[in-house]
Structure formats: structure tokens, C-alpha cells
């Protein structure tokens, strides 16, 4: 089943390690060229769903640096999350391949 763009991008944002909500939002905004700008409701709505689907979890040990707000919670991807992301990316890659073979996709090849 395809993941929603928001979920996919959150997983992508967490691929490098744990992040708090604000960092996730910033990362997503940066990678999508501000195509996806998540408000707090959208972000945490998705986070809740992902928590209960066990795609992500709250990081129990978190690095604290100066200026860290102690309210901030960090999230990280679970093994399930990583597997789901892999599957989704494979699916997307095959979609892109199929599109390219039909010359539907313009622009530079990433191969």
C-alpha cells in the first residue's frame, strides 16, 4: 500500500537519525523545495498514526545540547519503519523506471 507523501517524507527525514518535530518539518520543507509545508496539526497527526503503526518511536535517549527545549521529544525510525521505507522507495523506483521506459519522464536521468 502506498504511503501518503507526508508519511514518506517524515520517514525520509528520519533516515539519518532521530529528530524532533521542528527539525522534521524543516527537513521536509527543504527536501521538497517547500512543496510540503506541514503545520503542527498535520505533522503530529501523522506522527501519532506512525507511532501507533510502530513505524517510528520516541527516542528514549536523546542528545541534549544547549538551547534544547526540554519539552522537545525526539523521534526515530523503527526497524519496521525502515523496511516500509525501503519497500516504498523500491515501489517508487519501479514506477519511475516504468515511466521512463515509456518516455514519460523528462529531465536528467538519475541512473
Amino acid at each position, binding site marked *: 500500500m502506498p504511503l501518503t507523501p507526508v508519511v514518506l517524507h517524515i520517514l525520509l527525514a528520519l533516515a539519518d537519525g532521530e529528530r524532533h518535530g521542528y527539525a522534521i518539518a524543516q527537513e521536509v520543507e527543504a527536501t521538497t523545495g517547500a512543496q510540503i509545508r506541514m503545520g*503542527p496539526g498535520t505533522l503530529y497527526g501523522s506522527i*501519532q498514526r506512525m507511532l501507533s503503526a510502530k513505524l517510528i518511536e520516541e527516542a528514549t535517549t536523546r542528545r541534549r545540547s544547549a538551547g534544547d527545549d526540554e519539552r522537545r521529544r525526539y523521534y526515530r525510525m523503527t526497524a519496521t519503519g525502515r523496511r516500509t521505507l525501503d519497500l516504498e522507495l523500491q515501489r517508487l523506483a519501479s514506477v519511475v523506471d516504468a515511466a521512463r521506459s515509456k518516455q514519460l519522464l523528462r529531465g536528467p536521468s538519475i541512473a
Partner: protein
Amino acid sequence: MTGRARRFERLYRGALLIFPRQFRDRFADEMTDLAHLRLEDARAHGAHAFAREAAHLVADLLASAPREWIRHARDGRAERKQAIADGTLPRDNMDILIQDLRFAARGLMRHRAFTIVAALTLALGIGANTAIFSVVNAVLLRPLGYPNPDRLVVVYGMQGTQGREGLVFPDYLEWRAQNRTFEDIGVFRGQSVNFTGGDTPQRVVGSFVSASYMRITGATAGQGRIFTDAETEIATKAPVAVLSYDGWQARFGGDPSVIGKTLVLNGQAHTVVGITKQGVQAPFGVPDVFLPIPYYPNASGLQRGNRGMLAVGLLKPGVAIETGERDLKALAKQQEDLFPTTNKGFGVELQPLKDQIVGTSRTPIYIVFGAAIVVLLIACANVANLQLARGSARYRELSVRAALGADRGRIAQQLLTESTLLSLMGGAAGVGLAIVGTKSLRTALTNVLPVNGTITVDGVALAFATVVSLAAGILFGVAPAWKASRTNVHDMLRSRSSGNGLGHTATRNALVVVQLALSLTLLACAGLLTRSLIELQRVNTGFDTKNLMTMQFRLPAVKYDTPDKIWAMFDRAIAEIRTVPGVQSAALVRAFPLTGNGESYPVIIEGRPPATAGDAPQLQVNSITPEYFSTMKIPRVSGRDISTSDTKDAVPVIVINQEFAAKAWPNQSPLGKRLQVTGDDRWWTVVGVVGNTKHFQLNEPQILQGYIPHAQRPQIFTTLAVRGVEDPLPLTNAIRAAIWRVDKDQPVWGVASMDQILDGVIGSPRLIVRLTAGFAIVALLLGAIGIYGVLSYTMAQRTNEVGIRVALGADSRQVVRLVVAEGMRIVAIAVAIGLAASLASTRLLQSQLFGVGPTDVITFSVVTAILAVVAILACYIPARRASRVDPMVALRTD
């Protein structure tokens, strides 16, 4: 953080309330943080970016909240399904109810003392209401036992604005024939009938009726038949009679052979043609015997000008009472045009039969009912308070259940089930009380109220009791349930059983204020009614009421057909009666005071222009024999008494009362002045003035009175006034025998001592006062228990503080003062509210008050003092207990 940031945070957090609570609890902090950072970023890019970001945040909230609600609902259902499958949640509502009931019963059993006190308190309230409701039901609600009771109306004559009168018989005949709005109209005149031919002459209650009257009031025949229309027409005048079932049972022992027999009634033979069905009612009382209206003994009673007919009409289906009234008014106008001398300004008015029957009893019943409701409200407040107090003890039980996963709604539901079960127990006990209460009140109430059927706790009353119980359960259960459902599990577990905040005490104090304020209002009402009763009993009747008695007799018109015969009988009878040992003095009077008899006529004073019909002074005219004033001990003011020399051939004379003398001849002697009484063209000369007496009611203003000699205007109906050396009632048979020595066929009835008559007059107000005062006392006691309870509770809470005070040297007097002062603060607020409520509500009593205003300062002061004293006593007990606190113990306990 800047002030602006804080303001934003508050705003955003507020907006988060649109999310489901669970979601909010988990993410509110993070969301606010994110929103905050977003806005800070945007601000760096200028005002435009900032505004766009703010709009984006709002849109984000509005878009995501519904999504979370949907998810919340879906999860809730899934969880519930799982829990039901696991057996930790009941399957359906019935299961929940049974589970709750089991818990509730167990809880109530465990706290037996609480349960008993609460159930008894409720039983008092519900019992009082059920009992009084049974009265309301029997008098006001139960449908009348007539066919088509909603279409039955009483038809009254109206002279201008002077009030209701009877109808004129010839008018009735016209109206009945010509109206378009009535199915039928019937007439009736009630009068006692002399029944002779048995062992002793008897007076039976007679109704002279038209056949239509019997038909529309549903007086159907159980045996034989009722009258035909022809039999009750003047032209036919058939000598027939119909016995009522009750009359048949009482006078003939239910002997079926009476049909077809001939009875001598008012000296004339009548054939019994039928007996009415058992249970037949009649709007103006069920008689012993029905007779055709043409036999009405006063021939003038059926003539034009005599307004003595009582009429009942049955409106056609769907016809409004106003339409019927307009119809008859038009016909009345025709009669007025045709007969201007007798019918000038004579109109008509309709009244629903129901209203006629209920009459003036509605207000007193509502007053007592209101008092009962107030008692119930106070009882509910009391139980709510008990529950709140117990709620603290149960706090930990509830917290454990909450911690184990019971949601708040379920806990509240559970508490409500418990209070409902409790109130149903109270209701059951209350119904028991009501059954006992109605039984003991039945006779007293039936004597003074127009009871339809029997006053009894019937199905309707039981339904009422059930509804009231359930309502009471919700009323006193809501506060504790609401409290429990709003408490945080965490706080619950952390708190000790003794300390749970000021908010709690405030609720309890507010409940006590309500109780005391309601008690005060009820006390004020009861106080005013009591004052009225005392004033009524203190009314000077104008005569000596001790050792006085009366009885009535009516001579048969056929036998005594001339004034001379009537007077001869009266004269001999009074002479015989005076010879009875024990009789101090005796006289005849046509209308004995306070028995309801009496007639008033417009008078014309010689030398003054006759006033128009409505304005002429109305004089209550009474016929008396000599020695009436001395028998009654009515003081003579001037002139002379009626004497034996005032015979029918002598100059017509009249003795008037002081009121009339002062009104008609201010500042001059009325002696020698002459006046005319409407309907009698003789001129009556005033020969004496006597004191005023109360004639119709104790609370009437002084009326204009005139006494004329019986000998100068003998009428067949008279009453006897006897003053005994001692209580004359035991002389009844001797006096009766004396009358029978003159005429062995003359029945005598209406035997009553003046004390009995006064009892009857005062009976209704006295009953209202007793009931209202009884309820007020119960209310006061409940209020006292309420303030006692709340103070005991707060003092238990403050044992520590008191201990410290005592340890620091406060003596017991200071402690008592502390506690009482606390109580008095509550009382002061309650008195302020209660007095305001009293001022607003006692106005409703106005019509029932006599000799005292609805805002009587003395009454208000007295009841306030009573409330204050009782409240201080109730405060003093917990105060004493607090003052005996051993500081060492107190300080160790918490």
C-alpha cells in the same frame, strides 16, 4: 520568551481545545512549540510572511482536528470491541445497568447509616408530595364523573357587574328553545322536602329538576326510568318522583318494591318511577329525591323576576364556551327588550362545571402543594450534601477504579445509578407514608374540599411518586456525579481522604444556604397563614357564641298556605320550646348567622330619590321573633326591640344595625325614619338600632343589616336559635318533641351548636395552616440538619487548625465563637436570600390572608428569629465538639 510569544502560546493552546483530549494531552506542548518556532522564522521574513504563516497555522488546525476526531471515534470503537471480547466491559446498556445496580446496592448496603438517613429524608419529601398530590388529583385533576365533562357548563345570570345570580325560569325556557350552541340546557332548584307517612316526619334532600338536567348530567336510571320531558313541563306537572341510589338506600333500605309506590312529599302524593344508578353525581350535590321542577314549592320561584334557577348546559361538540356565551347573551338581550322591568341589564355568564366545583379551593391546595415541593427540594439538598460528604470518604475507592481504567463518564453514571436507587427506596417509603397520611387526612379534607371520588394513593399518584423519585435522584445525584467525573485520577490518588479542596466546601455551603433560604420562605408563608387564622378566630361575631344552638324547619306550603297559618305555627312552637327545661331563651330567625342562609335586597329610603338598580344599598333582611337579640346577646344601641305587639296588623317596623344607621343616617338618629325593601311595597319604620354581626363569613366587612318581625312577614322556612343554661345540644330531642307537639308531621334538621358551625367555617383555613406549618417545621428541621452536617464536616476538616489554636492558648469559648461565626455567615446569606424569596412569594398568598399583609414585618421578624435560633443551636453542637479537641490528638492525626 517575550510577552508576545506567551500571548501567542496561550492563544494557540486555547485553539487546541478543538482536538480530542487524548491527542491534545499527548501533543499540545510539541505542537505549540512548533507553531511558535514557525512564526519566529516567518517573522524574520517580514510582516507578509508572518501573516501567511499565521493563516497557514489556522488552516492546519481546522483541517487536522476533524481527522483526529474521526480517528478517535474509530479507535474508541475498536477498543470497546476488544474489551467486550475480553470480558472487561459489559456487552450492552442492560448489562451496564445491571452491573451498576449491583454496585449501587452493594455500596448502599455497606453504608447502612447513610442509606437509612438519606432514604428517610427523601421519604419525608416524597411522601408529603405524594399525599398532597393525591389531594390535588382528587380535587383538581381527576375527570368529573359526568358524561362529556368538558362540555358541561354552569349558566349564570349576571346583573351588570354585580356578580352571578341564578336564572329566571321563563328566560330558561326561551333560551333552551332558541339557542344554537347547546345540545341541551337543564335547570335545577334544590330544596329540602318534607317526607311524611313514615314513623317520624323526615326532611329529605330534594332536587326540583327538568328532565334535560338529569339527562345531561348523566343521572340515568338503575331501575325504572327517569323523567320524560313532558313530565317536567309546567303544563303537564306529573306527580312523579325519582329516588337517587343513595336516598333509596338511606331512606328505604334499598327495598326494590318502592318503585310504583306513592310517597307523600311536601304534603302531596308522588309516584316513584325510578331509582338512579349507583354512583350518579350531581353538580350541586346528590339529593335523596328528584322531583319535577313545576313542583317547586314557592310558586313565585318559577315566575319572571325571580332569579333562583341554577342551570347546567351541555355545549355542542366543538363549540367554545365563549361562542355559547355569545349565543345566550344575544337571547338575553331579546328578553331584556321584551321585559324591561324585570330583565333590565340582566345578562348571562358561562363557567366550566369543573371551575364551579373546584371553586375557591384551588389556591389553598396549590399553597399546600407548593409547601410540599419546597420540603422535597430541601430534602434533596440534604441528601446531596450527605453524598458530597460521603463522596470524600469514597474518594479513594473512585480513584482506584479510575486508575484501573474506568472512564469518568462511567463513574458518573455509576454514581447516578446509586442516587436513583436511593431515591427509589426513599420513594417506596414515601408512598407508605403517603398512604398513612391520606388515610388520616381523608375525613378532614373531604369535609372542606370538593373531593371528586376518594382521596387515595391511586395509580396516578403512584406514577407521580415514581417520577418525583427519579427526578429527585437525578437532582441530588448530579452534583456529586459531576464532581466525581471532573476529578483528575492523579489528584485523586495523591490526595488524602480528608483533604479535597475548598471548592467542595463551597458547594456544600451553597446547598445549605439554599435549604435555609427555602425553609425561611416556607416559615414566612406558614407564619402569615397562622396570623390570619388567629385574626379570623379573634373576629368579633357580634353575638355570644357560647351555649348557642340552631336547627331548621320548613313548613309544607300545601298545609300552611296562608301567612296566618304559618305565624300561628311559629308562635305556638316557640312557646313550647321555651318550656323545655335547660332552655334559657329561644327565638326564631329566618337566617341563622354563618349557616350560609340569608337574603339581601336593594332598599329605598323615604324622601330620597331611588337609586339606579346597581347603586341601591343592599340590605340583608332577616325575619325574627321577639327575644332574638337577647337570645343571641346582640347588644341594643338605641330604640327598642321587636316585641309581641308588632303583629301583622300593627305598623311595619324594622330594627337596623349600627353599620346601616351610620351609612344611611350619618350624624342623626335613624329612629322613626322609613324605608322600603324591594319586592314588598310596605314602608318599614326604624324603631331600634343593634350591634353589627357577622352573617355570611367571619372575614366579611360589616354588612348592612335589618331585622323585621316574623309576624309581619311569615315565611315557611325558619331556623331556631336556642341559648341553653349549659351546652344545649343534649336538649335536641326535647326541643324536637316540643315542635312535634305543635305539628307531629313537621321534620326538623340542621341541628348544630354554634361551636360546630364555627368549626366548619374555620375548618378549611385551619387545615391549610396545619399542613403548611407542618411542612415548614419539617423544612426547618431538615435545614438545621443541613447546617449541622456541613459545620461538623468542615470542623472535622479543620481539626488540625483548631488543635493549633488551642495549643497556642485559644480557650474553648473562642473556639465555639469561631465555629458559630462560620455558621452564622451561612445563616446570614440564607436569611438575606430567604427574605427576598419570601417577599416575592407571600404575595401569592394574598387571597388567603386576613387581617395581615403579605409583607407583615412582625411575622417576618419572628420567623427570621426562629430560623436564626434553630440554626445557632444546630451550629452549637459541632462548635462544642470542636472546642473539646485535644491539641495533642488533633496535631497527631494528620
